[in-house]
């Protein structure tokens, strides 16, 4: 009996000693959050009445980072995202966009500094499988890079990225003001308590122009988020994007280091390889950049549904990213090795997918030797 117990104890001890094999194996088989990870879903759920009621109580890191990003870029001031509770109470209308005077839109606005996509709407409702004209903007390296950036970041982030640390910029919202979470004195029933909160917490009258600050202070959040969750691919992407946007070589090298850490933790996330390619191009290391873009393209094609249809695991952002990875590979191949090599590569990619209109167009233009492909003129656009 004692011998049996001894054997059982030894077996349990041996099992314990080798037990890390299982979590190590499992860490390579992560299960994603599906459509919940997309920017669109995060924006929609964070703008919902239910999310407003819950305040900052959120279930995942990406939502927390989303809120922190908004706050930091607005100098710490918490604006009410996309919801007007007064209108909701009066008319039952749940979601409202920022209020604008009648007739004011992109076509009538005369203010060149006014961005009409400022409320973070992303026009990602185009049909990737059928429309070729939608992809006319993907014929240059710079346009492809812009497309990837638009999928990854909000307009406010792109605007703030142009600022240096410590700089602020006033953004005139007099014709489209958004309420703050801490209400103005006229709307606040709490009297002295409300006054105290407005004095103690970052607050600014919502009728005044917004003050946007540089996003460098966000970097520790992305560092922390990726440390606590090494599978947070978006954290790596946006963190590297912020670093790259600092435009100094030191920061760009830091961005490269950060994205390479992301790749080590998520070797199959093709977007990370795509971002690595962009960073390497910014460092003028084109040969390595091409390798990264090709790696991104290979991984992305393997993950993409053959027909490219959107679903829980394949969003329009994924489609934009794979488009960028494939076309950038082809364009850089053409610029470095010539038209024939690019055509061979393009055909090889095409053979692995049922449909992919942007590549069809590029192949057609490459097949016409006498005519300069549309993309040629812009192919050497710097990022």
């Amino acid at each position: 009996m004692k011998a049996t117990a001894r054997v059982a104890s030894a077996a349990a001890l041996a099992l314990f000693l080798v037990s890390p094999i299982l979590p190590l194996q499992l860490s390579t088989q992560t299960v994603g959050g599906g459509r919940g990870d997309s920017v669109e879903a995060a924006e929609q759920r964070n703008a919902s009445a239910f999310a407003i009621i819950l305040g900052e109580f959120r279930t995942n890191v990406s939502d927390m980072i989303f809120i922190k990003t908004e706050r930091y870029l607005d100098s710490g001031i918490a604006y009410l995202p996309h919801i007007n509770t007064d209108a909701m109470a009066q008319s039952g209308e749940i979601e409202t966009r920022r209020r604008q005077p009648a007739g004011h839109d992109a076509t009538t606005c005369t203010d060149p500094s006014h961005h009409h996509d400022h409320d973070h709407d992303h026009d990602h409702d185009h049909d990737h499988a059928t429309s070729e004209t939608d992809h006319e903007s993907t014929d240059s390296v710079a346009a492809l890079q812009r497309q990837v950036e638009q999928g990854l970041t909000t307009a406010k982030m792109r605007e703030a990225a142009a600022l240096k640390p410590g700089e602020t910029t006033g953004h005139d919202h007099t014709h489209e003001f958004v309420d703050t979470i801490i209400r103005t004195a006229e709307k606040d029933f709490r009297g002295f308590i409300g006054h105290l909160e407005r004095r103690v917490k970052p607050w600014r009258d919502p009728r005044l122009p917004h003050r946007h600050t540089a996003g460098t202070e966000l970097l520790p959040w992305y560092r922390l988020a990726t440390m606590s969750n090494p599978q947070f691919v978006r954290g790596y992407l946006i963190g590297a994007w912020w670093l790259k946007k600092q435009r100094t070589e030191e920061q760009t090298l830091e961005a490269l280091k950060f994205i390479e850490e992301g790749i080590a933790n998520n070797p199959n996330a093709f977007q990370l390889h795509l971002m690595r390619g962009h960073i390497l191009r910014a460092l003028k290391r084109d040969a390595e950049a091409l390798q990264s873009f090709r790696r991104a393209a290979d991984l992305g094609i393997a993950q993409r549904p053959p027909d490219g249809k959107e679903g829980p695991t394949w969003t329009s952002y994924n489609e934009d990213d794979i488009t960028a990875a494939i076309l950038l590979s082809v364009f850089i191949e053409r610029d470095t090795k010539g038209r024939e090599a690019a055509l061979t590569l393009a055909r090889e990619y095409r053979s692995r997918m049922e449909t992919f209109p942007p590549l069809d167009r590029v192949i057609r233009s490459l097949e016409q030797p006498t005519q300069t492909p549309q993309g040629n003129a812009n192919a050497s656009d710097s990022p």
Partner: protein
Amino acid sequence: MSTDSAAIPAPESSLRPVALVARAVVLETVRRREFYVLAIFMGIFLAGALIAEIVGIENPATGTFILDLGLSLCVVFSQLVTLLTAARQIPDELEARTLHPLLAKPVSRGQCLMGKWLASVFVGVFALGVMLLMGWVPAPKMERYYDLTLLQALVLQVAAFCVIAALALLSSLFIPKMLNMVLLAIIVFKSSTIIGFLQARAAGTALEDVVRWLTGYIPDFSHFNLVQAYTGGVEPVGFETFTLRLAYAAVLSTIYLAAAVWVFNRRTV
């Protein structure tokens, strides 16, 4: 013949004390307040979800957010119930001096521990069932979700209960009750964050592989959580991945239970 029967007990006779101990633990847990407090919290969510349904849900993403919140609360609360039930068993028996009469009966220490473990797991499963009625049934389902993914998520939760109960029983043998509960809560709900943090700190250094191996000894409960995969519309995980997760739970439960029995057999009560 009759002498042989007495010497070699029938298989069911060794399980009977386990079942009796488990039954007693379940009955005792029903009288506790914790479960009802958590059920009240779940009731608040239920009310919120119903109001949201009546007022109208703006878009499918918000519907999914509510569903995700409901299921996450189900999982967290039922894990908490399992943890509290298991962590309290031995310290309470020692404090009330009811362990001596129990062990004076023909019940071995191992059987006693197994009974308490089984009961803790059962209480967790029961809590999950009740919470699901409040958190999943009324929640809006406005997008496509795979039922099989939900089933996998629930099975993995039961596997997580097995690990939580075994770990709580083991640690309760040498850590004071309240401290044990706090530490266990940190491990159950934040272990993946701690592991990720440690691994990221060591990434790129000579210690990277060593740290990755050593952190493998910390139980990572995120491997048992498929709630976000379900609400994100992800297809069921493959057979290999699912089996590997179950095997992980089985290995951890076996190790912790074996260690608990070993420690309990050597401990003076």
